């Protein structure tokens, strides 16, 4: 089962599969060894690659609150239909921003390159996790504002894509 969530204005995809009682997790194409136990209705004990975290989770409709080590994260589940809907509406000039303080690992598209919706533009790394930022629209890469290896702040504009 694949779920799509929005955290701090950034979209992430996660897939959960149960095989032989073993949980398989894939986030943005990367598979992660995870073991979990539900302790209470709102409390999970999760082992991520052997690291033990107690996570509080509270869900109300599409909104999910997650509490990890002192921090509350507010997520919103985004359905496939809504995703499609937004990608149809979105056009014009789109700024691709860094969702968090991170490092630019790889730039996949250069200035002037044609891109399709959902095509990867740039790979950034934060907290030892690489994520690929995708184009929300069909168009051309107008500007690339960073180079590989750059450290960027949360919200920094990385690329600009234009539908014209």
């Amino acid at each position, binding site marked *: 089962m694949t779920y799509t969530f929005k955290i701090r204005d950034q979209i*992430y995809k996660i897939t959960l599969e149960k095989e032989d009682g073993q949980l398989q997790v894939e986030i943005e194409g990367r598979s992660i060894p995870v073991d979990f136990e539900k302790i209470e209705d709102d409390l999970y004990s999760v082992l991520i690659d052997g690291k033990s975290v*107690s996570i509080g989770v509270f869900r109300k409709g599409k909104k999910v609150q997650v509490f990890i080590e002192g921090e*509350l994260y507010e997520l919103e589940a985004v359905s496939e239909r809504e995703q499609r809907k937004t990608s149809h509406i979105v056009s014009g000039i789109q700024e691709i921003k860094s969702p968090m303080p991170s490092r630019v690992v790889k730039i996949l598209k250069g200035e002037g390159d044609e891109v399709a919706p959902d095509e990867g533009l740039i790979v950034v790394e934060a907290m030892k996790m690489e994520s690929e930022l995708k184009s929300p629209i069909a168009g051309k890469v107008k500007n690339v504002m960073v180079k590989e290896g750059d450290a960027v702040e949360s919200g920094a504009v990385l690329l600009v894509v234009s539908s014209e």
Partner: protein
Amino acid sequence: MFKKVLIANRGEIAVRIIRACRDMGISTVAVYSDADRRSLHVALADEAYHIGGSTPGESYLNKEKIIGAAKKSGAEAIHPGFGFLSENESFADMCEKSGIVFIGPSPEAIRLMGDKITARKIAHDVKVPLVPGSDGAVSDVEASVIAAEIGYPVMIKASAGGGGKGMRLVRGKDDFESSLRMARSEARSAFGDDSVFVERFIERPRHIEIQIIADSEGNTLYLFERECSIQRRHQKVIEEAPSSAISSRTRKKMGEVAVRIAKAVKYKGAGTIEFIMDQSQDFYFLEMNTRVQVEHPVTEMITGFDIVKWMIRIAAGEKLPFKQKNIVMKGHALECRVYAENPETNFLPSPGVIEYLRTPSGPGIRNDSSIYNGCEITSYYDPMLSKLIVWADSREAAIRKMESALREYIVLGVKTNIGFLIRVMNNDEFRKGKIDTGFIERHPELLKPPVLQIEPALIAAALSMSSAESAGQPAQKPASNWKLFGRRSGVSRSPLA
């Protein structure tokens, strides 16, 4: 000793006082507003009376209603806690006239220390050092003359002030006039009184306060200091005892000075003398709080002295059975105020319902709180969720313990400052004790997490979605052997099965 005490407060301090009373075999009376019917203090008290609407003015500040509840319940004394009516001279006076003991100092002591200008004068008379400044409320012209005399930077403060309202820092002559105007208008709207005074601004000041306790015969003791330099918007967030910045000589000097001030107003009960201290351990009198302080637990942890119980005993006429030399301190205590607020939006309060709560525990950990699963944090009152207090044998060990205790906390439903507090515990300057009241402003990087835990957050969120989907067929646990035995014996109908 009293048989019944009314607690004219709410939240964790009401709970703290109720527990002290129970330990002493005193029955308790709670009062509550519309918003507080489901609050913990109402549930824990032996009796509870509704005193009005949700805003403090309609309930917890309503003197007549509270005294009415005391009379109705037959309570012999009222503990005011902190905030609300705790430093209200006329309330203490009304209690006295109604034949109810006010657990605290005399109305006269509250009056003298409540007015900051009078308090400074009293301190000056007993030779307690004061920050250089105007002797009292000043006119606009006097204010600018005095500012020039004592030298910039200067601080403009409201005479009736508190909590940072009506306070302005002025770095130079050019800003003085506009800052003075703003301070006056803030003071007028907050306290209904626009008188202000001017004093020198101390660079990188530390907030050090001395806890005192005095009985009705004038035996006055100091229970050492607390350092409360970690503040946001002029309000304390992290407190500790002892301070890492003062020598035992300074400690003794400050303690004796505090006792002098308390004796000057014939103080009775628990009180706190606040000082501002510069980097060379020179200290100046700030003000006296004539009530129990939010941060009193850190003093209790290092002295073993129960401040709330002694307030009650002293109000009932008991004498302090010990001398100053009997009061010793041991180890180090820290307190973190856990607030429903968002550090990323300048500590904006975050009211809501506590959807899930897990609190820390373990040796040396004390969590003074009144929240529970499902309780609502309303915007009528202070958004403090709890006071997490730890004790260990050294400051370093206490910081480590606090960090690990904070990591055990889980709060869902409202935003909290827990992550921020964890980051302060890990901050190098904080660990080294290099702190002052500007610490938080100097470290804006502590306000948000340096790395987001996106991966675990996504996993947990996805797990909760998938468990909700499979909720149609709840996972059945295999019945226990006892249950199976029960079923078998039920079916067999044989007493010997």
